[in-house]
């Protein structure tokens, strides 16, 4: 069984956020980690590997420095790693990202593709289902549990007020929630091995059945009109009085506003 886990290197949103002059994110200037939902997806794949001996390949699209999350994934137990990187792929929205990743996946044998539900930088949750659409695969989003049963997967699909237990024939694509599991740590042996292993690097020419018009900034149907740091709403009045006076102040305001 072959599992491909799509992972993304994301800026740690606790650090500062920087933009290029064209309004796209300046990823090069920010601290980077493996996206949490993706890491849960990787852990789910590694647990299937522990049980069945499946082969786990990790794939990412990004700048050359995204190599770091692939090495981390291999140190956790992934067998192979592919980095899709090319200047012409830069500035991609979710459409152009999903066409790129689908183009890379067409080169691989897979029974199961796992992505994170969403990345903490964009929070869109769009790339997983869009990859499935480009590849004509069944998709199960928001997975809170994944089990393999013969040639099928059985997944607990989470909604706001319920879950559905769904069964899909492989090949299929699943998007993983962080709640799925607690990812394992890298092992010292794994870190040692990961340094020796090769990361396969693919560029534009390695993508299968994709038009140039569907790639990068030019191939992105959505365009950024404006991006900015969030401006806080202006502060109102603040008082520092003893409790009784505080309450009187607020009751006065409520009367002024005809709330009481």
């Amino acid at each position, binding site marked *: 069984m072959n599992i491909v886990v799509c992972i993304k290197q994301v800026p740690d949103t606790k650090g500062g956020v920087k933009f290029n002059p064209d309004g796209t994110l300046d990823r090069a200037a920010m601290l980077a980690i493996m996206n949490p939902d993706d890491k849960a997806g990787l852990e789910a794949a590694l647990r299937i590997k522990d049980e069945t001996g499946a082969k786990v390949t990790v794939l990412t699209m990004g700048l050359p420095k995204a190599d770091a999350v692939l090495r981390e994934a291999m140190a956790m137990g992934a067998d192979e790693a592919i980095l899709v990187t090319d200047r012409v792929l830069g500035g991609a*929205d*979710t459409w152009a990202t999903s066409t790129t990743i689908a183009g890379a996946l067409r080169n691989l044998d897979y029974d199961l593709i796992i992505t994170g539900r969403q990345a903490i930088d964009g929070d869109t949750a769009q790339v997983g289902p869009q990859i499935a659409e480009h590849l004509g695969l069944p998709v199960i989003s928001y997975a809170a549990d994944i089990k393999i049963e013969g040639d099928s997967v059985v997944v607990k699909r989470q909604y706001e007020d*319920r879950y559905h237990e769904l069964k*899909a024939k492989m090949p299929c694509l699943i998007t993983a929630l962080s709640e799925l599991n607690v990812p394992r740590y890298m092992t010292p042996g794994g870190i040692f091995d990961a340094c020796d292993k090769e990361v396969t690097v693919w560029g534009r020419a390695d993508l299968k059945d994709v038009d140039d018009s569907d790639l990068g900034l030019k191939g992105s149907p959505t365009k950024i009109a404006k991006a900015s740091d969030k401006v806080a709403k202006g502060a109102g009045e603040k008082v520092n009085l003893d409790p009784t006076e505080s309450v009187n102040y607020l009751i006065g305001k409520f009367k002024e506003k005809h709330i009481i």
Partner: protein
Amino acid sequence: MNKMALEEYKGVFVFAQQVDNVLDGVAFELLGKGKDLAKDLGTDVTAVLIGSEVKGLADQLAEYGADRVIVVDDPELKEYRTEPYAHALASVINEYKPEIMLVGATAIGRDLGPTVSARVKTGLTADCTSLEIGDFPLVAAPGKEDEQKHNQLLMTRPAFGGNTIATIACPDNRPQMATVRPGVMQKIAPIAGAKANVVEFNPGFTPNNRYVEILNIVKAVKTTANIMEAKILVSGGRGVGSKENFKLLEDLAEVLGGTVSCSRAVVENGWLPVDLQVGQTGKTVRPQIYFAIGISGAIQHVAGMEDSDLIIAINKDEDAPIFDVADYGLVGDLNKIVPALTAALKAELGK
């Protein structure tokens, strides 16, 4: 992407999400926003209703502003599954060619939206908190005024955990698609007896490998109030100190006819259930009055409540960021202020 004949696409469409044949509140919110956008564009609003035996819901959509309702009714659509629903919505888009397609950013919409956008080959902006009609680019480059496009859907959304705000356009593809965060847009006051033009459409459903099998449906037992519907929220944070101390907030909520909600820290401490959590990873609320009590005001919390009509913060730390978004801030000990406020309100309201 291939160039599209954009002028063929007309009208504002909203996906009218229903589960168990009950319309989701976000459907009405989208209709409310859809009406504003349609007015700016001089067009009308169509609700797309997908399910099994759902035609009876069309009148309700009319009361909330739908001029037309396209009903896709088929036994395959009884429960939400990505494939038959994506086929239904994509077929409606290909047949009726809307210029704008809005979908609620729910656990259904955030699966259906991307699948459909990829199928009809257009862009999709996720989790929008503001939508308006305007120009793209916002300001025309000098000498390139004729390249500026008018009457575009400008979709604004937070990103980076609420640290940034981006406004996105989809100038060369149709429909312009967005998922919209529940609780943000305003529904209209329902117009009793309003009728919409109801159109039935069935593209045919032939199960294939992409139709997943539903083995089981497990509904969560609902025991808590819906904080998204509340007019007054009395919200507590870590500063409340303990589960027991939430009694102070419950008393205040009771005298005002409000509901208790909380920040993430409270859920993490096991003091209140996650259904009551306001914020980025909880619910977005916009009550008439929001009390933030013992809540420091992390950006993730503020993202979920800053659009409340009136915000009152009570916190002992006078530098707490919550005061930056509060209309009225009381610096002091919540254990003293909250009971005194409850007592004073009781006296004022004659309770």
